[in-house]
């Protein structure tokens, strides 16, 4: 490496690119070190689809308005208050100015996708999804003079006192060391490192599927934590959803989700129900089901619907198991048939008047007299054929990360690190103590990526 860089950005997803573009526009010479090959560049961003955005009045593809207070209230609800309110407000408040900025940097939006109308007001969808956003940002970054190294795996940041003095990475089998003036870490969580996940979760983690990139192994995160950089969040907190049990171990992305839970009965391997399937509309509940399934024996759940519900949800990528009787379906799923029959019979008997059934609204069609209850969309499973899916826990990203301040700057116990900033999933735990809000990861990445880029460039330009 003969060239000298003002800033090294570690990672190649949304937050990294926002930081790199912002810094380059401020005149800094920027190098992106992306550990993935070009075909897999972009980290988890390549699997995303939208950006949750506050707005007063219609903005881009977004209709009506979504106030700072409502946005914050939504966040507080899903996190149970486990958030840094100051940073949360900063992310929410800044999201509004991000949308036009994203458009200026090549991102194109499209109307809310079919099947996601409930998000038309709050979430701006990228045309073509996250990979097209990533592609557009790489194009723009290159135009701004940002250099990109693929398959460049950063192994160590040398922290001396209150500064990072060296960035060590391997590329094409060779070890390199550079000393940029500023460093931005935007290399995600550690979810693809099963050993680390197992240390946090216990053996259950072996059964988790990783929804996104296999490249987020938390190497830089671990390296910095080892050197005393301040952390935030718990190692067992993450964005985890219940996904199709047949999904690949890594990188299954959006298509492995199952939207049928609200219209189903979900049981564990002992054919027992364990949670209210109809608690809320699915987009608001899918993020808690990952943990619910993780808490069941063998970390597996079984969703059962009957013929009348088959077309009420988005088609699944793998076809469901199908049988004419519950017993036959139990056999296909390795469930105790008698027990399943008993559970479903009890459930069916607890269903009442279903005339008010409405698949897209909280209809209040509930069970009575069973635990757990099903509080909406409770219709008996009576019409063959019956369909079944297995559910597994799919981890999107882990929340244990780097603690940052309003400037996205990292610190040790003794104070700020002069030239280290963090953005994206690697610091999202500051705002997401638990739970998740659809499209908020991209908000955090964009807002703090831009802040990190701005601050890193200001320091480098000093």
């Amino acid at each position: 490496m003969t060239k000298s860089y003002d800033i090294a950005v570690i990672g190649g997803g949304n937050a990294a690119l926002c930081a790199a573009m912002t810094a380059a526009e401020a005149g800094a010479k920027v190098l992106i070190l992306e550990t993935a090959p070009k075909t897999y560049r972009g980290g988890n961003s390549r699997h995303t689809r939208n950006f949750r955005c506050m707005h007063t009045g219609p903005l881009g593809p977004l209709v009506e308005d979504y106030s700072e207070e409502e946005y914050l209230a939504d966040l507080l609800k899903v996190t149970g208050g486990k958030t840094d309110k100051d940073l949360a407000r900063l992310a929410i408040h800044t999201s509004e100015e991000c949308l036009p900025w994203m458009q200026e940097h090549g991102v194109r939006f499209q109307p809310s996708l079919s099947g996601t109308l409930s998000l038309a007001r709050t979430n701006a969808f990228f045309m073509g999804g996250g990979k097209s956003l990533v592609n557009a940002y790489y194009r723009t970054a290159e135009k701004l003079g940002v250099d990109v190294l693929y398959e460049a795996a950063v192994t160590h940041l040398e922290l001396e006192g209150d500064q990072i003095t060296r960035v060590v990475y391997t590329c094409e089998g060779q070890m390199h060391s550079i000393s940029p003036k500023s460093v931005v870490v935007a290399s995600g969580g550690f979810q693809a490192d099963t050993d680390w996940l197992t240390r946090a979760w216990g053996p259950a983690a072996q059964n988790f599927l990783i929804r996104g990139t296999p490249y987020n192994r938390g190497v830089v995160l671990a390296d910095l934590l080892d050197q005393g950089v301040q952390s935030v969040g718990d190692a067992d907190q993450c964005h985890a959803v219940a996904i199709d049990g047949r999904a690949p171990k890594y990188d299954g992305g959006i298509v492995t989700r199952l939207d049928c839970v609200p219209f189903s009965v979900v049981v564990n391997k002992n054919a027992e129900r364990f949670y209210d399937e109809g608690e809320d509309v699915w987009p608001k509940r899918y993020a808690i089901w990952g943990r619910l399934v993780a808490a069941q024996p063998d970390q597996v759940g079984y969703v059962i619907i009957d013929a009348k519900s088959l077309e009420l949800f988005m088609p699944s990528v793998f076809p469901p198991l199908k049988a004419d009787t519950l017993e036959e379906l139990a056999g296909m799923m390795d469930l105790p048939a008698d027990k399943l029959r008993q559970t479903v019979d009890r459930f069916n008997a607890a269903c009442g008047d279903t005339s008010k059934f409405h698949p897209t609204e909280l209809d209040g069609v509930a069970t009575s007299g069973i635990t757990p209850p099903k509080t909406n969309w409770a219709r008996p499973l009576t019409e063959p054929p019956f369909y079944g899916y297995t559910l597994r826990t799919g981890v999107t990203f882990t929340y244990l990360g780097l603690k940052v301040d309003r400037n996205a700057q990292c610190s040790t116990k003794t104070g700020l690190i002069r030239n280290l900033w963090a953005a994206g999933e690697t610091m999202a735990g500051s705002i997401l103590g638990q739970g998740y809000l659809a499209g908020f990861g991209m908000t955090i990445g964009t807002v703090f990526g831009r802040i990190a880029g701005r601050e890193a460039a200001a320091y480098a330009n000093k």
Partner: protein
Amino acid sequence: MQTNDLIQEARRQAEICNACRYCEGYCSVFPSMHAGRAFSDGDITQLANLCHNCRGCYYACQYTAPHAFDLNLPKALAEVRRDSWEVHAWPQPLARRFHTHGGAIALSLVVGFALILFALRALGGGNHGDGFYAALSHNAMVAIFLPAFVLPLVSLFIGLRHYWRTVGGEPIRLSHITAGFGMAARMKDLAAGHGDGCNFEDEDRFSHARRHVHQAIMYGFLLCFAATSAGTVMHYVFNMPAPYPLFSLPKVLGLSGGLLLTFGCGGMVMLKRKADRALGDPKAWGGEIGFILLLGFVGLSGLVLYALGATTWMPMMLALHLGAVLTFFLLTPFTKMAHGFYRLAALVRDAQRRSLR
């Protein structure tokens, strides 16, 4: 019967797409795809003919190789599309030759030249022809080109009727036709939902290059066609036989059309050389290039013929131009030219689907 493997592969991919839907805003294919949950062979054929191979969905896709899902929808649909043209074309013995063999097109062109040269020698201009008619009389031209024009139209009509049955088309209303033609006239599906164009010559960069050269070819062709029609009307209705002066309808239309056609085809060949062949139907590449060169040659030879019309080169150029036109017409149902008709049918069918929903 359409090739089952190709349909099956496209169906496999469409089922993954339908669980994702990220590409919904790009073009007509995805809203049509997302309207259903299962895809019949006819549905896949219709989706394939709606696809303009703009490649936006490929570059946006998180599931392309090396991902295990191995999505390459533009290619899968291009293969089904070409197969559908071959299967629906009539008569069948000619159908499976020209889409995949540029050489067959070149050979046909030589035969076309030879036929016209033979006609020139055998029939000549008679005693009282002016301009081109001195080389080949008007009656002789009509005797050659009337069947060469009508027969391919009959063939296309039979093919399209067959297509309409395959995709489950219903009785057409005027509004379906205007909607379909409106999409084609603006080539809206190559502009993408955001209006930035398609991904073709430079990976994921959006540009209007392909859309613009396509429009040059399409409108160039239509202008040339209009020039010939204007000449026919002037000849028969107004008793004004050729040659026509520069500021006459046939000349103005023909010259502008010829220029658009020639430059459009040249531009299209250049773009296709830059584009990634693995995102189209690799087998059809030679046939497509052969067809574009033929069409471009029709335009270029027409311009040269005009330039040399008063010289001794005229009969030779006339033979080259008319030979190319003859070949082009006769091969229309069996070359890439057919795509325009099937594309229109698919767009009309899509407008119908939307209106019936």
